[in-house]
């Protein structure tokens, strides 16, 4: 239901109005009243809870005292750090590897090896709706804080366990990381240039099995909360195996193998299903005089012209009408021989141009095209900042940081980023007094005994 003013606007204005990021904090939060405990490390587990935190859940992140989580000590090239790590170690920074996986959360420090810590976890569990953990399978069960123990304390709890290979099966004891999941799952085998072009199996630029794994777990948690609150009133145990994520992504390649025995291979920057639908190398750099060596590199530009009329237009732009005559239909173009002939011919056009010039030429002819932007060019786009997927945040602890925002837009109950993360144990007093019934002197005592 939309009021008159909104009904009369143009569509673009309507979208800008209902998705306006300035109104975000005036609107309610989806998961108000939901509490989640995140006893997680690295990226897979924390990301899952983080997506709930964006939607307004109260997420309590639990880390080891003083040192915190291992991801705090990773940062690209050892160069950028945000300070402080904690009030105990202000001179040591938190690396940016930790960034993006823990927004909006409350930070509790707890040493699980001490019995009082187990007590605290149980008190938290009794009041929480969701628990996320990615320790080795069976560890929390042994310590008395796994699903089997929690479900008696709190039958409404949705307990999500995440890990590399799962808690059962021949590979259950294997430790796993994101790129191990990518490697064992087959993702490397289809990304990159083929050997003939000097390429090799390549990793995706992001810790995708971790972050995406967290996302799909968050979806499952939301669906289970929906089921709990609208149908059954019951919580349950959920498992997620990171390496399984790779099979889910590559499901069509798996079907192909099952039917034909074909093992899919790398196809570089082109596309097996469509032609022309690939990334062309342009000969010139867009910023040849930049001080940053990244910017001095030559540009690349994507173009998509797989429909016959579009391909003809493309051939016109690059000045090679012969090509259109030789490959008039898509069936002519899409074969592997044809693709290997067509793309080098197209790159001849781009060999003396910057990616912006190529982009302009293609879009001028009405073709779909996009230059390959590096992180700086992408971050400078007003588009993402306007929409809220990237934002500058005046973080209470760190100051002015540029951060990713929520991935999706909701017009009535948008997600939001309140702070990027906090030091280890920043919210100890708050969480312990609010949820566990500890008084000031008891908390000081816990700190002295290094339990928190």
């Amino acid at each position: 239901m939309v009021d008159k003013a909104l009904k009369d606007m143009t569509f673009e204005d309507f979208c800008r109005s209902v998705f306006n990021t300035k109104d975000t904090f005036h609107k309610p939060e989806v998961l108000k009243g939901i509490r989640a405990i995140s006893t997680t490390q690295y990226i897979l587990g924390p990301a899952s809870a983080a997506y709930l935190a964006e939607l307004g859940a109260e997420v309590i992140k639990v880390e080891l005292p003083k040192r915190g989580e291992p991801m705090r000590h990773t940062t690209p090239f050892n160069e950028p750090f945000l300070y402080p790590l904690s009030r105990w170690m202000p001179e040591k920074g938190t690396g940016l590897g930790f960034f993006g996986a823990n927004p909006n959360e409350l930070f509790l420090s707890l040493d699980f090896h001490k019995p009082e810590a187990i007590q605290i976890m149980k008190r938290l569990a009794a009041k929480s709706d969701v628990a996320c953990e990615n320790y080795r399978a069976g560890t929390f069960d042994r310590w008395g804080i796994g699903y089997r123990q929690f479900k008696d304390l709190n039958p409404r709890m949705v307990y999500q366990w995440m890990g590399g290979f799962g808690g059962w099966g021949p590979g259950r004891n294997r430790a796993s990381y994101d790129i191990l999941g990518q490697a064992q799952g087959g993702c490397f085998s289809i990304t990159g240039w083929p050997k003939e072009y000097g390429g090799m199996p390549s990793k995706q630029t992001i810790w995708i099995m971790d972050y995406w794994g967290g996302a799909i777990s968050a979806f499952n948690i939301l669906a289970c909360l929906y089921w709990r609150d609208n149908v059954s009133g019951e919580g349950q145990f959920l498992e997620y195996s990171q390496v399984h994520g790779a099979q889910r992504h590559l499901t069509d390649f798996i079907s192909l193998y099952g039917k034909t025995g074909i093992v899919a291979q790398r196809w570089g920057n082109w596309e097996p299903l469509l032609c022309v639908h690939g990334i062309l190398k342009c000969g010139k750099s867009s910023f040849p005089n930049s001080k940053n060596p990244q910017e001095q590199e030559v540009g690349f530009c994507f173009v998509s012209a797989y429909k016959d009329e579009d391909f003809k237009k493309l051939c016109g732009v690059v000045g090679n009408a012969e090509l259109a005559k030789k490959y008039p239909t898509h069936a002519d173009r899409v074969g592997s021989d044809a693709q290997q002939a067509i793309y080098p011919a197209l790159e001849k056009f781009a060999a003396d141009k910057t990616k912006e010039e190529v982009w302009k030429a293609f879009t001028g002819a009405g073709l779909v095209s996009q230059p390959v932007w590096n992180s700086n060019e992408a971050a400078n786009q007003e588009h993402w900042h306007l929409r809220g997927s990237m934002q500058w945040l005046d973080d209470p602890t760190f100051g002015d940081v540029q951060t990713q925002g929520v991935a999706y837009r909701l017009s009535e109950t948008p997600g939001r980023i309140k702070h990027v993360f906090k030091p280890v144990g920043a919210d100890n007093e708050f969480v312990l007094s609010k949820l566990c019934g500890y008084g000031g002197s008891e908390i000081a005592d816990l700190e002295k005994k290094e339990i928190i």
Partner: protein
Amino acid sequence: MSSPFRETSLILECPKCETLNYLDPFTFWNFKGKIKCAGCDAIWAYELVNGTRKAAPAAATAPHDKMPGYAQSKDWKTITDFSKVNKGPQAREDFQGKPIPITKSKRGNPVSGTPLTAADLVGSRPKQFAK
């Protein structure tokens, strides 16, 4: 006792000056050509097939085809001069490889990117951001 690095493939010990030239597996996994030693500039003809050497390096004449990805002496003295080893990727105009103190963000506002002492904090927040 002869150094074990005399026989290694990807770590090329220069027959002349014993500098260890690290031939990174990205660039050199399959390689045939001339490498310039980062320690003494001597040129060596060398061939690697699937990371394994075909023969010991043979003296050769300039110009070289490639420089090693990194080099150091046997007692770990590093050589990272760009005229001696390949430049690695950099995120900014200089490459430091150690924490870079930052006080202002890209757009000029204060950000907590430098080490602090306990005296700079109010609770767990830097003084400049606490009320």
